[in-house]
């Protein structure tokens, strides 16, 4: 008796026939009845008779080996159209391409980029696509090594003639990956991250509009690393955020992603398919393609909170870099200032950001701040704490003076002027 078998189950005088489904609890058999309903039946009290084996393929969730497609390549081989631009679709897993995992009953990622094409037929006719899978992970499992692979993959796709790149990414850590690519890549074409907040297995998923708008943005003129996600709870337009200034600010809403400290850089209107920008951006072809994927691994982001155990700072000994998420203008408890001084003296680069998220740090206003500056802390301006961590990892591995770089913009992460209304 295996999942996928057609069975007859008798329990307490009631007989049911249906397809056996994987169960997430050992005490219950889960049966899919004729009408489509799944029901759980106590295994111990049930009499089961297998009527037919393997009626359906409903095996345990795929491990991501991509073997579930029985080589059906032709279905995704889209005809090449000379008049259309070429867009590389790179998948890293995530909600935009996910399906049900029977072990946990939850949703897991197991599609590759070609499945996305099949899942989102609306993408057809907008571009010639090249699909590629860099990873198949939940985005909370993202690793810096995958950022590096992703940067190399994007670089290769552009080198091979892609007019734009769309990266399908889980939403949890999308802002970190987008920041990483923004620092690693000089790109002459758009690199657009997108994903979905509501899983692709629901008719209401935001994946279709996000993917369509991301492709439109990848064909447009802004050659930067962008995040393209719903601009409101309506299916009317996607916002385009600079990868280094964006933050997931809601756990579940479609419009969870927001540009911090300003309005989004641009918009894609779903109906008219027009892409528009409200500020300066780097234009297509302006940069020469280059990739610098090196990262320093030993960088920590530390959030200071009242009552924090000073011992928590001890494990920072010997780190290459530390980004502090301080309070207000960029502060920590006065007692911690000497500790930070020691870190700097030992050769650790310590950068200050603020847990206010909105606004820039300024350690010249209060004594604690001045003491921190004296101790050797560098200010990261209005750089978001998460972005600052990625930036410091990159700067330590690629620049001669990483401390100096934390105070200026490398990839739009630090705004020269505070103009939240723009």
């Amino acid at each position, binding site marked *: 008796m295996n999942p996928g078998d057609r069975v007859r189950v008798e329990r*307490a005088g009631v007989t049911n026939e249906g397809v056996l489904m994987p169960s997430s609890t050992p005490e219950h058999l889960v049966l899919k009845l004729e009408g489509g309903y799944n029901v759980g039946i106590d295994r111990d009290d049930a009499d089961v008779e297998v009527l037919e084996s393997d009626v*359906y393929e409903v095996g345990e969730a795929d491990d991501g080996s991509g073997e579930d497609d029985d080589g059906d390549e032709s279905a995704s081989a889209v005809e090449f159209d000379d008049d259309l631009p070429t867009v590389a679709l790179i998948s890293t897993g995530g909600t935009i391409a996910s399906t049900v995992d029977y072990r946990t009953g939850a949703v897991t990622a197991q599609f590759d980029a070609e499945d996305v094409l099949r899942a989102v037929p609306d993408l057809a006719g907008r571009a010639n696509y090249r699909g590629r899978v860099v990873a198949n992970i939940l985005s909370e499992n993202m690793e810096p090594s995958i950022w590096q692979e992703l940067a190399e993959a994007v670089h290769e796709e552009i080198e091979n003639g892609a007019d734009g790149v769309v990266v399908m990414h889980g939403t949890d850590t999308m802002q970190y990956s987008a920041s990483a690519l923004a620092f690693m890549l000089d790109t002459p074409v758009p690199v657009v991250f997108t994903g979905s907040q509501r899983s692709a297995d629901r*008719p209401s998923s935001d994946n*279709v*509009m996000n993917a369509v708008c991301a492709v439109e943005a990848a064909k447009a003129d802004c050659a930067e690393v962008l995040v393209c996600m719903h601009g409101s709870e309506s299916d009317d337009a996607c916002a385009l955020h600079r990868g280094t200034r964006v933050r997931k600010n809601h756990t579940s809403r479609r419009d969870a992603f927001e540009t911090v400290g300003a309005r989004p850089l641009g918009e894609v209107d779903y109906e008219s398919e027009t892409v528009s920008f409200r500020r300066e951006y780097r234009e297509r072809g302006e940069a020469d393609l280059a990739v610098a994927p090196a990262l320093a691994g030993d960088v920590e982001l530390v959030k200071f909170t009242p009552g924090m155990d000073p011992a928590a700072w001890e494990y920072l000994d010997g780190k290459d870099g530390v980004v502090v998420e301080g309070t207000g203008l960029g502060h920590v408890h006065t007692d911690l200032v000497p500790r930070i001084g020691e870190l700097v003296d030992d050769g650790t680069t310590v950068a200050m950001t603020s847990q206010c998220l909105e606004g820039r740090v300024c350690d010249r206003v209060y004594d604690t701040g001045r003491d921190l500056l004296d101790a050797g802390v560098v200010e990261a301006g209005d750089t978001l704490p998460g972005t600052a961590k990625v930036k410091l990892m990159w700067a330590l591995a690629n620049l001669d003076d990483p401390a100096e770089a934390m105070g200026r913009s490398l990839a739009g992460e630090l705004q020269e002027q505070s103009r939240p209304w723009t």
Partner: protein
Amino acid sequence: MSDADREYDYGELGLVAGLEIHQQLDTATKLFCACPTERREPEESTRRFTRFLHPTKSELGELDEAAVEESRVDREFEYLAFDSTCLVEEDDEPPSRVDAEAMAVALQIGAMLDLEPMDQVHVMRKIVVDGSNTSGFQRTMLVGQDGEIDTSEGAVGIEDLMLEEESAGRVEETGDGVRYSLDRLGIPLVEIGTKPDIRSPEQAREAAETIGMFLRSTGKVKRGLGTIRQDVNVSIAEGARVEIKGVQALDQIDAIVENEVARQVALVEIRDELQSRDAEVGEVQDATEVFEDTESGVLKSAVDGGKVAAVPLYAFDGLVGRELQPDRRLGTELSDHAKRHGAGGIFHTDELPAYGVTDEEVAALKEFVGAGEDDAVAIVAADSETADLAIDAVAERARVAIEAVPEETRGANDDDAGTTRYLRPLPGAARMYPETDVPPVEPDPSEIETPELLTEKVDRYQSEHGLDAGLAEQVAYGRRMPLFEEAVDAGVDATFAAGVLESTLTELRRDDVPVERLTDDHLLGVLLLVEEGDLAKEGVNDVFATLAESPELTPEEAVEEAGLSGVDEDEVREAVAEVVDRNSEQVEEQGMGAFSALMGEAMGALRGKADGEVVSEALRAEIGKRT
């Protein structure tokens, strides 16, 4: 020829019927979030947003054909949200666990229907892409199976009981799609399906009434228009399974079944007749030129901006006009199919000349399409695209008429006769996949308590509270039954409570007092004030009228406002003594005989502030003193 008065032998015809009953539950919160289950007016909406839906694969990798069909049209759905709407209803937050109160009520209903509860209830997503669910699916779960109810014509099996979320209410069609209101979305709904055990129209009605009685016995079901919907499945041996949707009134169910039997019998007769005549449906043709100079308004506008499409129905003469149900003919069926494809309807030669179409035009039409004496012709006038689609549908339906009674989904018409109209083909099996956001529920059957049935309440109200049979039934089946029981439990006299809740409120409504504004707290509060002697029974109407005018008042404040603050017994005695003084002559002459006359005057003097019994006692004593 009408079959309205024909008697049918349902056993001989092989009538098989089943019911599907959908009932909204009156729980404190919705099925998957903590929002209230109250309905709102569209004008109260505070926000709106728009969405599109896209079909998805089930977990078995299958696409729902109906969903694909539906989504081919790119429709935009607009949703009205309220200050009582949350992100779950907007499909912007995962659902909460299954509402415990709704599950408890569903299990209770299951127990009354003698159903076996499932060991583990799994929440499923039933794909629905018409926009009525923001998610694109309806969450539904099979709670129990295999029950039974009794009817006077034998047992009727209950197939299953589902607990599911109500869809969003359709407000109106918009230019690009449909506008929905989110207040209704997520209200718990039970769906009860009987087995096809029903053998007569009366049994169908009795089964529906019995199930309805069980539902209302919980005291936890919504009342009023649209809160209960009955679907009826009907077939006869030579006919076909037909699903009739949306029967709103219980007392129409027998008529609906009767009419469907009549329709199927008539269609079988028409089929036999058509076959014996060697009937045939001809080729669809463009007959616009026949009507170039027509005086018929409908045809004229089609001639100007569209076309008149025609189909000859060979050997159909007289049968297109044959009645199937009161005032509904085979032609009406053809017309329904044309309407489904966007046309206004059809004309057919059995009903022409009429509607401005002349005898000459009918003759010309018949000649044009090659139809003779024994033939009929159906025409559709519309814009070219619609006319083509609609006339094809008409021709197809006419072809089917020669072969068989078609399986289909029909809708109950809004009439008293219990007629129905064609809606769409029968749906295929619904595509469902697991709702992964909600863990399964394992009901504990030992915690299910079955409520007292309404039939048992009627008996108890008589034996325990001394209500007469009529009033007992009125209260038990009325929507204020739970309030009545609460009042009686709190010590209010049962007859008084029943009278107030059933008669007084009805009287006030007739006097145009807006009694619908009175809340349960108002009603109970007033009953308790009377019980505690703080308000005279005679003042109840005035207090209700005051509360209905100013619902923000408490019952105590309303008593004050109505100038009915109680008078103590001394004041009563004083007032009574005054009345007796004024009428001392009459008292001396008649003694107790003056009581009735003076009682009215005394009550008037106290203007409803004092209880009649107290006044009567005081008056009796006062007269006694003087004689």
